């Protein structure tokens, strides 16, 4: 009776953390959760937007030795403010090494030297495959999105991948309109069959909770609910019958230190995020 156990756990947890929720946004909870997923000393391939914020927050809190690698060729960048683009001048100025774009993809990413890759997406499916290319048919798209960028090879070659995506009916869909980068393909064994080296997505970090792949089937399972979020809400958002962990946890709310660091980072940052 896994589901019942989950519901009981949720009710109890909701009450415990309710009091904090007016002091931070769900977006902030998502960024803080992502930052916590990074381990000090890891090498992290970072894009722009929420992943960059999360990685830079981690560097300012529990992971000062996190190595940030940007696809513009900046290895070991130590920005003092949030970069606006992956080619921000400050990334190059503070990096240990700036290499060419061919080198960053061939010698660093493809070679499997990156511990953690961060990806965002417009759509995600139950096996954590991602779409950043089109909504609608490829040849006649309803919405044309930016496309792949570094994602296909980040998804393939990083030792693990963290996905950051807001959870709603338009983002959690099955099937995807286009598979821009692979999570677990069609499920267990897909990555191995394709000869991929990295483990794939180990966590999907949303504004409502965290999901992790089932160790056997590789299907995403909701393992953590953020404070103040109900299981019904999450269930409603998923475009498929979402699996819920038998040991569903409640995310610890952002600490004062985390919020302070995050807000300092963002206010020092850019005109637009």
């Amino acid at each position, binding site marked *: 009776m896994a589901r019942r156990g989950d519901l009981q756990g949720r009710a109890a947890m909701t009450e415990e953390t309710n009091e904090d929720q007016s002091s931070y946004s769900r977006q902030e909870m998502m960024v803080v959760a992502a930052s916590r997923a990074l381990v000090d000393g890891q090498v992290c391939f970072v894009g722009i937007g929420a992943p960059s914020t999360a990685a830079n927050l981690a560097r300012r809190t529990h992971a000062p030795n996190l190595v940030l690698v940007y696809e513009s060729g900046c290895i070991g960048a130590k920005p003092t403010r949030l970069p606006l*683009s992956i080619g*921000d001048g400050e990334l190059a100025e503070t990096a240990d090494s700036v290499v060419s774009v061919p080198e960053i993809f061939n010698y660093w990413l493809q070679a499997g030297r990156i511990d953690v890759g961060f990806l965002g997406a417009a759509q995600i499916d139950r096996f954590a495959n991602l779409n950043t290319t089109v909504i609608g048919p490829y040849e006649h798209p309803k919405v044309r999105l930016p496309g792949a960028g570094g994602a296909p090879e980040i998804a393939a070659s990083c030792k693990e991948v963290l996905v950051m995506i807001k959870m709603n009916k338009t983002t959690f869909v099955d099937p995807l309109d286009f598979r821009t980068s692979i999570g677990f393909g069609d499920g267990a064994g897909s990555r191995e069959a394709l000869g991929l080296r990295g483990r794939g997505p180990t966590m999907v970090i949303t504004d409502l909770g965290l999901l992790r792949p089932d160790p056997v089937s590789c299907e995403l399972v909701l393992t953590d609910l953020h404070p103040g979020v109900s299981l019904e809400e999450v269930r409603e958002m998923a475009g498929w019958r979402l699996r819920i962990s038998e040991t569903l946890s409640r995310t610890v709310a952002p600490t004062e230190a985390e919020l302070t660091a995050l807000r300092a980072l963002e206010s020092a940052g850019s005109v637009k995020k």
Partner: protein
Amino acid sequence: MAQLMELDQAVSELIHAGDTVAMEGFTHLIPHAAAQETIRQGIGDLVLARLTPDLLSDQMIGAGCVAKLIFSWGGNPGVGSLHRFRDAIENGWPRPMEIEEHSHAGLTNRYVAGASSLPFAILRGYAGTSLLGKTANIKSVECPFTGEQLAAVPALNPDVAVVHAQQADSAGNVHIWGITGVQKEAILSSRRSLVTVEEIVDHIDLRPGGIVIPSWVVTAFVHAPGGAHPSYAAGYSERDNQYYSDWEAISRSREGFKQWLDEVIYKGERR
């Protein structure tokens, strides 16, 4: 040896209707001045190759210069959508635009193969993605030693590469520092190359992190200070973040864009 030219002369001599043109600059040193001069001269039917179609490409696409776009990521960095790019793909406006879509790694390796005079490059790429079926320019090849299947992409050898750099000396040796992206490969893979520079110096004083592209692989160089605006040139200018933000509103509607085109490109001063 590279020839010193004025921007209008260089664009008209080097870029011809129907050419495949690589305009590179990865978030830094984006050759906006040369691209806007290309629009101004009405050079059309171009195959535009660019890893990161951003405002430069949006302007060229909206102006109707681009028959085909070879790219890997098209957006307004830090802002959002690229509306002229979207309108061209979604609605065929102002003209139908063919696309050839890659990942950064794949398109980068097309340039690497081109610069190396190899017919193709191999990479661990595209596996398990829908990109595979969308262009004939992604295939697979078997390793003759291990039997592994790798992705293969053909060399890209544009007719002309257009880049912006910080400096050239009077002989046309080009000096680039900071994020150097894929500019060297763009120049070396192309039949001709046009380099706009912030400054022409007597002698190149190599900077840490700097690279020099010898004059004898450059066709034309142009003194075009501010030629990367609204992107930046490390050591010379800052990124004009407001311009990127403003572009959202300018480019959102066809009317707004046409007004910009008319005022800024055809009648006015480049901004």
